């Protein structure tokens, strides 16, 4: 027992930890600048964010201490709780910008759709853990994981929160991509997906969601109206040029041209102040984190651990890429946060738990496998 815990601490994954800390601290530093334009309590958000990081870090540390196989056993229950919370949202819905995303306990609000990403990952990992296959999977084999994904994704889409629902689907697709799927099945799947998204765009999406996509397709058409967010975020990034305007001196940010600069648009603030150099460093940190996490997955001691790592990595990757892409005009604007960097308790906690799962898998990657019997 003694030997094992020694073993654990010595296997602490420093690169993972440092990459996460760098991103989180850059986030706090940037948050201070982003909110410095306000005279109100908003300017104090960076302190709140520090508390969240610390709190979530402690929760994460505790989680690491437990073997993740305990979690494996309760994965479906956790998943069910996530779905339940999404349903509660519909009942206790509180309107924030025309969509119901939050659950409130007194002064404390949290966003179940942040956590269902993790519960989905756990459920998918559990399913694939219990369903090892050596021959290629057919579409029918993937039907159950797909159904597991579609339940929370559909509920979130109905909130409506297109961005987060999309992230759920992307997580599933990324996990599906590491499984062995028959080539023919994959082709059929891609074909039907294209068809389905065409139908979805024309018949299922709400007007404002379609408007955002149209703005993305034609970014300069309506700068003063629907394209305002995207346009000014893009200008701010460009205004950073090579070396940036300097810390606390981002012009577009200081003159209030960047909307939601703490939550959805912290990246333009950062890119404007630190320029192409700073932005590349930040993206580099994300890239390192993701690639390192894939490395952890490849070394996982069991299927559950591997799939969890791929899922968490997918979550971080898609969040980061979608968020940055939407701010620089590569994607339509959807409300997706930048992991560890954006302000927000739910987002920070969720990402911390995800990282602690990575850490947990990493620390236990080469532990002695049980004897065959």
């Amino acid at each position: 027992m003694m030997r094992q815990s020694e073993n654990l601490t010595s296997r602490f994954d420093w690169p993972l930890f440092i990459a996460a800390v760098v991103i989180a601290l850059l986030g706090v530093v940037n948050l201070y600048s982003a909110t410095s334009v306000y005279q109100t309590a908003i300017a104090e958000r960076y302190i709140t964010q520090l508390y969240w990081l610390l709190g979530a870090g402690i929760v994460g540390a505790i989680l690491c201490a437990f073997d993740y196989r305990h979690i494996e056993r309760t994965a479906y229950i956790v998943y069910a709780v996530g779905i339940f919370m999404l349903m509660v949202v519909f009942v206790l819905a509180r309107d924030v910008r025309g969509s119901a995303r939050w659950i409130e306990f007194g002064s404390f609000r949290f966003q179940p759709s942040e956590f269902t990403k993790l519960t989905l990952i756990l459920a998918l990992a559990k399913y694939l853990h219990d369903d090892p296959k050596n021959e290629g999977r057919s579409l029918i084999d993937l039907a159950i994981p797909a159904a597991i994904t579609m339940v929370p994704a559909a509920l979130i889409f109905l909130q409506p929160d297109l961005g987060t629902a999309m992230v759920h689907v992307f997580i599933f697709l990324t996990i599906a991509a590491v499984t062995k799927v028959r080539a023919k099945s994959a082709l059929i799947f891609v074909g039907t997906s294209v068809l389905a998204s065409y139908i979805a765009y024309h018949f299922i999406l709400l007007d404002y969601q379609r408007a955002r996509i149209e703005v993305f397709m034609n970014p300069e058409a309506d700068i003063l109206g629907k394209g305002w967010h995207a346009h000014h975020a893009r200008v701010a990034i460009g205004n950073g040029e090579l070396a940036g305007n300097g810390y606390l001196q981002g012009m577009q940010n200081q003159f209030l041209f960047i909307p939601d600069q703490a939550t959805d648009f912290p990246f333009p603030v950062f890119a404007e102040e630190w320029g192409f150099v700073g932005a590349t460093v930040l993206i580099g940190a994300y890239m390192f984190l993701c690639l390192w996490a894939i490395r952890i997955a490849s070394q996982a001691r069991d299927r559950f651990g591997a799939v969890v790592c791929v899922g968490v990595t997918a979550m971080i990757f898609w969040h980061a890429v979608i968020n940055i892409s939407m701010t620089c005009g590569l994607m339509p604007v959807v409300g997706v946060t930048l992991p560890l960097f954006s302000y927000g308790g739910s987002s920070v906690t969720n990402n911390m738990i995800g990282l602690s799962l990575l850490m947990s898998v990493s620390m236990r990657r080469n532990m002695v496998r049980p004897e065959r019997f």
Partner: protein
Amino acid sequence: MNLFFQRSDTTEFRKRFRWIALFMAIGFFVVIGRLFQLQILQGAENHAIAVENIVRRITLATTRGRIVDRNGVILADSRESFNLYVVPEKLSLDSTWPKLADYLGLQQEERVRLEDKLRKIQEDKEDPRLKQQILLKEDIGWAANVILQEQAHELKGVSVVSVQVRYYPSGVAGAHLLGYMGEVSAETLPKLKSAGYLEGDRMGVAGTERAWESYLRGTRGWEKVLVDAKGQRRKDPGGVIDDADRRVDPIPGRDLRLTVDAKLQQAMHQAFKSELAGGAAVIEVKTGRILGLYSKPSFDPAALSGSFGRSALTEAFRKMYSDPLKPAVDKTVSGSYPPGSTFKPFTALAALEKGLVDPRASIQCRGFLRIGRKMYGCTHVHGPTALHGAIAQSCNVYFWQLVNESQVGMDIIAQMGQAFGFGQKTGLGINAEASGRMPTRAWMTYRNKGRYLTGFAMNAAIGQGATTVSVLQLALAYGVLANGGTLYQPQLVRAVETSNATVVQEFAPRVRRRIDLDPENLKLVHKALIAGVNEEGGTAFRARIEGVDLAGKTGTAQVGHKLVRGVEAEKVWYFNRDHAWFAGYSPSAAPEVAIVVLVEHGGAGGKHAAPIAFEIIRAYNEISGKAAPKPRDGAASRSSAGRQQDAPGRASGAQGRQRTP
């Protein structure tokens, strides 16, 4: 196979991890590529857009030039007017309003009215004005503004906006001459945009304000400031705006120095106080400069310019256009009237210059003239009358006989009249000028459908019939009689100056033409004009004021009977009354100024117009510092008139000034 073992077997995934990693790396590189495009390739472009986002060019107001009289007395200037705005939603009727009303010093009636207005807006939650700044009171005055600024902290929802408005210290006395200002209309705005006018701008719409708009107006400046996305002004964090390109100062409008004398203008207003309508002009005979130009009824140019607020503006316009005496018309240049007997000197000159009449020859005036079956009545029974008496005592029969017996035809009269500038615009340059009419025989024949009657020429000889003149034309023509034959272009603006009184441009007198007249003939007319005022029996003799030296001719012009629309029947008699005229110059020996007075529907010229002319000339003498000492007896003026028999055309100004008693 044991499930536990199988669960630990990650070989299914193993081959694909590198592909996932590659996919993610590509994703990040795509994003970095996009950043390279935005920040490096299009960086300068985006920086320019970011700067453009926060830089606003605001216009800086300019001040309109002043208009001053010949001595620098202000006739028109701009002042700040403070308008009070409130946001009804923010203004508390219980705590703020009583204080505000006290600071403003509102009368009880207005206080209740405004409070009701605010309460109504506050009670109606749907009212769009609830959240807007509404104009509560215009022109609250400088003192009230100071108090409100001091007490601003306790007046929530109250703000004061200052605007430049025009004011006219001379008030109604110089209204037509100065004109007034009006807001640029929506229809003309597109045309004026290129000249730098903006919506809500005011420009001159009448008089000098209009004619000299481009000089008076000035040029706006601009300044670049930084504004955030919410529209708030911000300090420059440094280097955003190029200092060389930060500000262009406004250029104030030019000041105009007029030729008129504000005191004389006021005196003219005073002199007209007993008459309802008319006009008068005083000009310098040796330059054509206008010393005074007055039209009655007048209007308040400041009220029409909107300087006292919108309600005062509407009221002023209503008053101006509902008055049957037509205050909007400048009676000195825009109105044309039959000159009546004031025209006789020109008929006389026409006859003399053509050698058609012997000035010493008398005719017999029996008080009427019978031509065929028609009887023409004279003003009196003048008895034997020669040219001198015919002008001085205004004998119509003499002039009719010039036509009937001396062959002074229509065209001879018209030729002389046109030489003196009748029938042509004078070129004053302000207000719509009437050209009047100096009819020729051909014109009369044409108008009368091909039939020409001798009566036309008889009418023309005494300034009746189709002949019409404006007050200013007549004054200039008498100026010619006084100066010996030079017709000047009237001049109203003497110089253009900067706001610190440096002369930018000065205007010299302009001669329109020299009329070739025999000095002997002029002298005859001149003597007759002196007699008309200073000799017993002269038509203006009774209006004489002792010590005021004047030569001139009265006129009583008949008015065609016509019903004036919108006037009650019992008032029509007024509009059928004759126009009263006086035209002359002063001092008689060496004339300096010509004066014409018209009293619309005033009646007899000697009774109604001549006294006004004397009043004005007396004021002129006083103002120009040569007020005659109280004359000892009535003979003084008469004897001086008798002594000064030399031809006016030969007397120089300096000479005249010295010789005036």
